[in-house]
């Protein structure tokens, strides 16, 4: 065992710690769990910001020209007489997308759960580079603050849509915003840096810091998904950074990358953005898939169906994600042959995605289902992601995409995968690992009420969007009633808006449950979900430095209802059965 201890030069700072001040321990912490919790609070705040922007959008689309309640709080440059101005409306849609994608869902999935789960599930004391990890958090917070500052500068927030299409974004005379557009670019560059720092940490930790016996194919699917996500992040974010820097230079030092008048190419921005953007889509869904896999197996009390095919499906999705970006640009002017190529590669993604959906269903099939809150939300994820995936096939097909491109159909699709997918997975993951973070359980009854109300109102909001999208309503449209052909759909728009307000209100149940349980939640037993993962061998909340001595791993993480298990329906990874052999230290490399 000595060689194992020596093999991890960073590892010896775990377990034995001198007492630390409050600031060291909770603010400028290098502990992966504290950093994960910091990310959790910050990104839940940004989730709230994104939600507040969303209900303003829904007010304007549902009730155009009607004074919005509380609009008196907004300055004259945003709303006059309570009515949202077009300039403010475009800021709302831009910043809603930006905050939700970059500052809520991405840090919630990757910042929180990659940080929190990877070392706990792999059996190591901390990340490979704890200080870089701390920087990753503080840079992400800085980026969020810079983005938020956009609302408080004289000409208002960025307003070219979250995709920042050039030349609108590049030329202040077109967009009407100068400083805020620059802040957007700076914020994205800082966020990219934060993301790369985090991702290289996750990759190194997964490769080099696994517990004895934790072979690649004994890793939980959540770790597999986070590992592949980190690879996507490390390779995709720099491309966005490069693009954002070029855009920033166009706005500030007079370059002309995206300005066709001087020989630049506006389409170049779209290519760069979506070359990043499509891997980004999988950064936003793969961790959700991984965590749902863990929870579905736990809630079904069965081994995950097709573990290896799940892993290869993750890898397949991640690989295909690099060669499909053109499907965002079918309507931007693209050679039809190239369009067909992108169509085929995009449709191929349906194969690994379907493998995953069928495997989740296969896992649940004839399982001994436990409908705890995480399981309910995980099932919500599987069903909603399936709808989102199916509407994705519509838009992947070029002939179908032509009429529905840039309509509410795409808005419905993105929300079915990002809200119905990623956010439901988070509503599953947050209560599931809450005891490991805070030592208490979130309220089950409240969680179940929250799940059902969210599930129903969520579908009432987003399913009709397919219909109004088919009816031709454009996304980011300020006032649908100015078009005669959209007027018959306005009652449906009103209905969606009312449902959206209900959906927003229901989330306060979750917020209340989350905050209330911090102090008043039921004390969690050590292994409340009767799970096999290594993290449940620790007390709740997990102590600083994790393990005194890292446990050995004897099997994969999904041994539920195993006949070998002596007296329970689960068999944790670290339990040594009489037939198990200890992991043998590999011989030192030849020549030494």
């Amino acid at each position, binding site marked *: 065992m*000595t*060689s*194992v201890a*020596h*093999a*991890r*030069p*960073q590892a010896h700072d775990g377990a034995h710690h001198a007492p630390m001040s409050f600031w060291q321990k909770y603010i400028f912490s290098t502990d992966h769990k504290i950093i994960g919790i910091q990310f959790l609070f910050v990104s839940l705040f940004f989730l709230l910001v994104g939600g507040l922007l969303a209900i303003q959008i829904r007010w304007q689309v549902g009730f155009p020209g009607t004074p919005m309640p509380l609009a008196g709080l907004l300055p004259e440059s945003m709303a006059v007489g309570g009515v949202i101005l077009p300039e403010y409306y475009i800021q709302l849609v831009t910043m809603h997308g930006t905050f939700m994608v970059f500052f809520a869902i991405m840090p919630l999935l990757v910042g929180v759960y990659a940080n929190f789960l990877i070392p706990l599930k792999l059996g190591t004391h901390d990340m*490979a*580079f704890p200080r*870089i990890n701390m920087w990753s958090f503080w840079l992400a917070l800085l980026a969020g603050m810079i983005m938020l500052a956009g609302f408080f500068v004289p000409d208002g927030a960025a307003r070219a849509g979250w995709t920042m299409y050039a030349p609108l974004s590049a030329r202040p005379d077109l967009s009407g915003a100068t400083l805020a557009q620059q802040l957007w670019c700076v914020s994205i560059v800082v966020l990219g840096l934060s993301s*790369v720092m985090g*991702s*290289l*940490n996750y*990759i*190194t*930790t997964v*490769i*080099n*810091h*696994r*517990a*004895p*016996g*934790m*072979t690649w194919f004994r890793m939980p699917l959540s770790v597999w998904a986070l590992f592949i996500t980190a690879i996507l992040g*490390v*390779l*995709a*974010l*720099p*491309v966005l*950074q*490069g*693009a954002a*820097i*070029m855009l920033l*230079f166009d706005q500030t*030092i*007079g*370059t*002309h*990358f995206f300005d066709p008048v*001087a*020989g*630049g*190419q506006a389409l*170049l921005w779209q*290519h*760069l953005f979506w070359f990043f953007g499509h891997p980004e889509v999988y950064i936003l869904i793969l961790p959700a898939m991984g965590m749902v896999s863990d929870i579905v197996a736990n809630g079904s009390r069965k081994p995950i169906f097709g573990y290896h095919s799940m892993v290869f499906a993750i890898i397949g999705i991640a690989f295909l994600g690099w060669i499909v970006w053109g499907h965002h640009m079918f309507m931007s002017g693209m050679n039809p042959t190239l369009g067909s190529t992108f169509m085929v590669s995009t449709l191929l993604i349906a194969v690994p995605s379907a493998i995953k959906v069928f495997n989740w269903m296969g896992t649940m099939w004839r399982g001994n289902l436990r409908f705890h809150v995480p399981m309910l939300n995980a099932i919500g994820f599987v069903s909603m992601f399936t709808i989102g995936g199916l509407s994705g096939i519509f838009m992947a097909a070029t002939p179908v995409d032509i009429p529905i491109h840039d309509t509410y159909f795409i808005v419905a699709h993105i929300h079915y995968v990002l809200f119905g997918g990623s956010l439901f997975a988070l509503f599953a993951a947050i209560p599931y690992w809450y005891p490991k973070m805070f030592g208490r359980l979130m309220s089950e009854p409240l969680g179940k009420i929250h799940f059902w109300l969210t599930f129903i109102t969520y579908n009432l909001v987003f399913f009709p969007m397919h219909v109004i999208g088919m009816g031709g309503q454009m996304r980011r449209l300020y006032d649908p009633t100015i078009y005669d052909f959209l007027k018959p759909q306005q009652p449906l728009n009103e209905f969606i808006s009312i449902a959206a307000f209900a959906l927003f209100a229901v989330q306060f149940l979750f917020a209340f449950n989350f905050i209330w349980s911090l102090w008043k939640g039921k004390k969690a037993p050590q292994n409340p979900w009767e799970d096999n993962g290594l993290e449940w061998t620790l007390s709740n909340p997990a102590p600083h430095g994790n393990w005194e001595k890292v446990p*050995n791993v004897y099997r994969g993480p999904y041994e539920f209802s195993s006949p070998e298990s002596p007296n329970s329906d689960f068999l944790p990874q670290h339990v040594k059965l009489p037939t198990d052999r200890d*992991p*043998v*230290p*590999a*011989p*030192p*490399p030849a020549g*030494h």
Partner: protein
Amino acid sequence: MTHATAAADLMRPPSPAEPGAGVYSNKLGMWVFLASDVMFFTALIGSYIILRFGMSEAWAAPGAVLNVPLTGFNTFLLICSSVSMVKAYAAIADGKPYFLRPVAGKMLRDGGLKFWLLVTILCGAAFVGVQVYEYIKLVEHGFTPAGYREGSLIAEHALADPVRYGAATGAMYGSTFFTMTGFHGFHVTCGVVAMTYLYFTKVLPEKYSPQDYRGIETIGLYWHFVDLVWIILFTIVYLI
């Protein structure tokens, strides 16, 4: 050699029970970071290729605007710094942390880590200095990120000989040139700062040994990468 001594050698970590990559984490992390940096430069260089070859008018001829001999010398400096980086790495791997030592019967002295890393830092800093000088001169003569400044020397040349100076493509020339070489210069600067930091905190106090010189190997990887990027940039920006 016994198992225990092998384990103490941090440069060649023994395989744990479940083998990792077989390299220590700092090196692995640097490789991952470099992969990410490759993608960053790919975005810039790819954009340059698309913008340049997507234009119907010709680019300025090599050497018309840019001072190729000066930058050629700068390229030489950077390549020398890569060589001295290898010498620094080899020195500490051989257990030579010192600055210079006389060699019996020879005029030349034997350089150690302190000497070769200092050479690397100086070459890197000189490279940045020459680049700053080049930028100042270019902007003085009227070549800016926005293109050829009206009324400047280069703009007059471009009027007289529009083909050689790529009068129609000057704006894109300036945009791509300053962005690509600027970010490369930024990378060199970061490398120089990092090496200087290592020099004072680790090299001068002789904290590196043949058993542990991870910092030198890791920063060396970065340095060679930055050098490699420059050779590509020099070729496609200055020579063609």
